[in-house]
């Protein structure tokens, strides 16, 4: 269960203060697939980064699996991310000098697992996203869709409770986008909570609920 209470985030630039998020209250149930929609500058990416424990809010609370996220000291927050969250970034952000398998193994580099267990987990994640045959390819040797799949495999390799995805289909063609969304759906059907920021209304068809943001506030919610 993710519980957000009266969440605000302000950025100050010189004398100007931008209110990216303004008093958001939100609850996301375990196993739910939620999309967050809104125009550019509506605060959706900021909301996702705050949810991901990477962006301290100006005020308000984020509670995740019974833990008040921002009450954790810095390195404990990093540990929380490692154990409970999986990230999929818009530009994939794969490490260019690591192979697909190594990129997927990255979150396990700090996990107390044997070398073979890490290999098995990463191989399993890549097979799950349909890239079992391209383990040793570098990101530059993969297509955009394949890179996205590697990024998804990296997000799920440590079996996190929650997957946070920022515009996961932003750089993909419509066919590949559909495949990637189907993959998210499949992961969600497997029991993982997925929170996805998107500007593509078609993607909302795959989700359980859509939250609309405008000027840093929730303006509407809708069930698919």
């Amino acid at each position, binding site marked *: 269960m993710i519980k957000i209470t009266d969440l605000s985030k302000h950025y100050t630039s010189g004398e100007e203060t931008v209110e990216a998020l303004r008093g958001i209250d939100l609850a996301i149930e375990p196993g739910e697939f939620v999309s967050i929609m809104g125009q550019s500058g509506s605060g959706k990416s900021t909301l996702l980064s705050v949810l991901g424990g990477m962006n301290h809010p100006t005020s308000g609370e984020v509670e995740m699996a019974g833990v008040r996220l921002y009450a954790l000291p810095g390195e404990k927050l990093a*540990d929380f991310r*490692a154990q409970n969250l999986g990230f999929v970034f818009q*530009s994939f952000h794969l490490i260019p000098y690591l192979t697909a398998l190594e990129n997927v193994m990255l979150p396990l580099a700090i996990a107390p697992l044997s070398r073979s267990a890490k290999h098995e987990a990463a191989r399993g994640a890549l097979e799950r996203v349909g890239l079992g045959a391209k383990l040793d390819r570098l990101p530059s040797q993969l297509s955009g869709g394949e890179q996205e799949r590697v990024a998804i495999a990296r997000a799920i390799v440590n079996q996190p409770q929650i997957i946070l995805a920022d515009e996961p289909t932003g750089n993909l063609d419509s066919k590949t986008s559909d495949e990637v969304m189907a993959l998210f759906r499949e992961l969600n059907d497997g029991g993982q909570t997925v929170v996805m920021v998107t500007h593509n209304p078609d993607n909302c068809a795959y989700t359980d609920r859509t939250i609309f943001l405008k000027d840093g506030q929730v303006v509407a919610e809708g069930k698919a």
Partner: protein
Amino acid sequence: MKLHNIAINNLRRRKAKMAFLTIGLMVGIATIVTLVTLTKSMSGDIERKMDEFGANILITPRSNDLSMTYGGISLGGVSFDQREIREEDLARIHTIQNSRNISAVSPKVLGGIRAGERDVLLVGVDFDSELRMKQWWQIFGEAPRNDSEVLLGSEAANALEVMSGDKVELNGETFKVAGVLEQTGSQDDALVFAPLKKAQQLLGKEGKITLVEVAALCSGCPIGDMVVQIAEKLPDARVSAIQQVVESRLHALDQFRRFAFGVAAVVVFIGALIVFVTMMGSVNERTTEIGVFRAIGFRQSHIMRIILLEALLVSLLAGLLGYASGMGAAKLVLPFMAESKDALLAWDAMVAGGSVTLALLVGVLASLYPALHASRLDPTEALRAL
């Protein structure tokens, strides 16, 4: 996959960056190795040369005497409480703690003697050690090989009107002139040299020694210590360092060493600067990557470990290559810089270990701030997309 795999893979697959970083530090280390090795090799060479030219410790009998010398004119002296060095005591010199620094021990007995119609100063020497100590001696003829042969200084030979191969009479006993010294410009020119035993017998000083010259090899030469050590072994003798010789050697070497260390310090500083700038550039280039690491749960200490491990590996490689190329450069340059053609390259485990350690130290210290900077990057800003 562990943290070190990330560091190793980064270095392995970004060869150009790694090569640049390695070369930057390697050049610094190589320069230091070359300078230090050249300094040591040349110091060794100079020391060897200097040691060949005379003694630096003088042992004379202990006496309370008043020197009566003024302006280079000696009017003799007043000696009282005169003691003597016995020949059998000399073996004790080789039992001192720094005995391995002793290159030659040359005992001498001195005394006036009648040579035909003239008085000459006879010096009894052990020709083996005397010739080792006075390598500048040029002998016309040969060095005496038995008790019936003597060696004459050039002036003595002129005064006695003899040359090598002739006979000379000392205290009524006939000796063969085995050789005559080429003019040295020193007191040696006026002397008659005979084998020690024979001279003692001629002078009536059997078993007695007038003075002992000691040549000590000066690699880190503890002349002062050696003087004290010899004095302890020979309580009846006065042992003194020939200060002028010792100090001029030390001064020349010290100046050379200071110059080398000065240059080395500048080069290390430049090397550190190269590492710092390159590592800082590398961190800035990898901002997104570091953001990903932080987002997936890497702690700040994990990021630091990755960056510092990379620096450590590059520094290790730079240290090893720097040592090898520095020694290579020293080997090439040494023949042009050393005094003698056969100067030996100083292989020193300390220089090998020191250069690698220095490379590691400089590499890691110069990378400390970039690593800290990387670990403190805000993941949201680093990723920007979020």
